[in-house]
């Protein structure tokens, strides 16, 4: 066995392989080039519904979150709807819950198929009875919507009050909003509102999951 020859061949091939690998790695750092249609495009499902939130009308009373909590009996440690405060002089508010995305990242990563996107209206419903509590969806959702309850060991999130809606009622949060800041409807219609957008500054690009929400930022 000519060991010197063996070594020189392996060294050369290692260098070669290294150069090729370096190139491949350098070009391969970006696996997801987001070149999707913009979130303002017509929804794939024409019956997709969504929330609309008008930042000009919100007074931070948190009636929406309280109504949601009462109606849906949030499991301990979960928040289905939140009202957050920020911006200049902390005078900007945002009430948000699940955006019932066109491409829900939660549903695509969930190993046990606990998430279902309804054909009827595009509501993304999570079934806690089959959730194993792996928390993968908590990383996947750019909006931090799925919450884990340590008390029950499973995820909870907003389901757009689908049972109320099936009975012809409004979602609890919308029904209790005193100023009309929070409303809901067919997404393609909501998007026609003046000043409508799907992204606030500093928030995730709507290209990630195509959220079914309409925001009217404070003018």
């Amino acid at each position, binding site marked *: 066995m000519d060991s010197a020859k063996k070594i020189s061949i392996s060294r050369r091939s290692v260098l070669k392989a290294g150069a090729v690998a370096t190139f491949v790695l*350098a070009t391969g750092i970006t696996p997801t080039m987001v070149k999707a249609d913009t979130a303002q495009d017509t929804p794939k499902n024409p019956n997709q519904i969504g929330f609309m939130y008008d930042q000009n009308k919100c007074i931070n009373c948190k009636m929406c979150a309280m109504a949601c909590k009462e109606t849906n009996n949030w499991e301990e440690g979960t928040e289905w709807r939140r009202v957050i405060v920020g911006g200049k002089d902390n005078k900007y508010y945002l009430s948000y819950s699940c955006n019932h995305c066109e491409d829900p990242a939660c549903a695509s990563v969930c190993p046990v198929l606990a998430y279902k996107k309804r054909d009827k209206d595009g509501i993304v419903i999570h079934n806690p009875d089959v959730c194993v509590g792996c928390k993968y969806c*908590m990383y996947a959702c750019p909006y931090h919507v799925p919450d884990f309850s340590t008390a029950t060991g499973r995820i909870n999130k907003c389901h757009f009050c689908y049972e109320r809606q099936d009975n012809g009622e409004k979602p609890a949060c919308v029904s209790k909003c005193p100023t009309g800041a929070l409303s809901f409807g067919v997404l393609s219609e909501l998007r026609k509102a003046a000043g409508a957008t799907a992204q606030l500054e500093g*928030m995730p690009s709507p290209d990630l999951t195509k959220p079914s929400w309409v925001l009217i930022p404070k003018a």
Partner: protein
Amino acid sequence: MHHWHWLIVIYLFLGGLGAGAYLTSFAAEKGWLGKNSRLKRAGYYIAAPVVAIGTALLVLDLGQGLYKPWLLFRLLFNLGSVMTWGVYILSLFIIIGLIKAFLVFKNKTAPSWLTWAGAVLALATGAYTGLLLAVVKAIPFWNSFLMPVLFVASALSTGLSVTALTAHFLEKEGSTDATEGKVHLALVIVEIVIVAIFFGMMAAGAKGPVGAESASLVISGKYAIVFWGYFIALGLLLPLVVFGLEYQRAKQPGRQVVTEPASLGTEITTTAEGSQQSYLVLVTDLAVLVGGFALRALVIFAALPIWDGKLL
């Protein structure tokens, strides 16, 4: 905003470790690690149990793992979820790995397809632990194809180390060929290159400002000591130097004989040096394991979400 903690860190580490251990013994069996390598069995013995322990920890981490374990069957349901792929890959790897280990233990020849299936599943296991994270777009630090590549490189390196350590205490026969050190040197160099590209590009903002923020947490922020001390110095540079010197030494046999007059004194020194050297290699193998574990911890704990939940 960390939803996964130490159990997941250990799980990712053990997944790679077991996969690498199998591939080490597989390579030894194929003769890729030198003639009559002592690594032909040890890796097979530890591979499946190590991955099984990791999987058990994962189950403990699940909210329903002990509460409603029958729900775990559903983990096989979403063929579009990387986690589901992982459940298939790990389950099959554990089964094949146990059969292979049993046959090796009984000195029976395993069917070639079984050995190869194990190797493919081992590679898949190592890649899966990285891919699980790489597909999460909302975590820019994870969302890179380099993640599974880096995890596989680390899996091979830690697998080789754990197998060498186990073989040191387990095997009385077989030899340590210079090829073993050479292969490990190559693995360490490849890993250093991947690490440099990954952190360089991440820090340069290739995955946006949040990815850069994660990278700076690791490189110069609160995880800098773990990164530079445990991962870079212990896990990569020490092995680079030790395996590098071993390689130099192996390349120039008889150098001492040529340059120095043979005497009783030098012979004793050489022997003492030799045994020191083997302890140094053992310590280095331990350091590789520490580095591999540090890498998994860094990747999990430096994960920043694309949105910090605050209103600007």
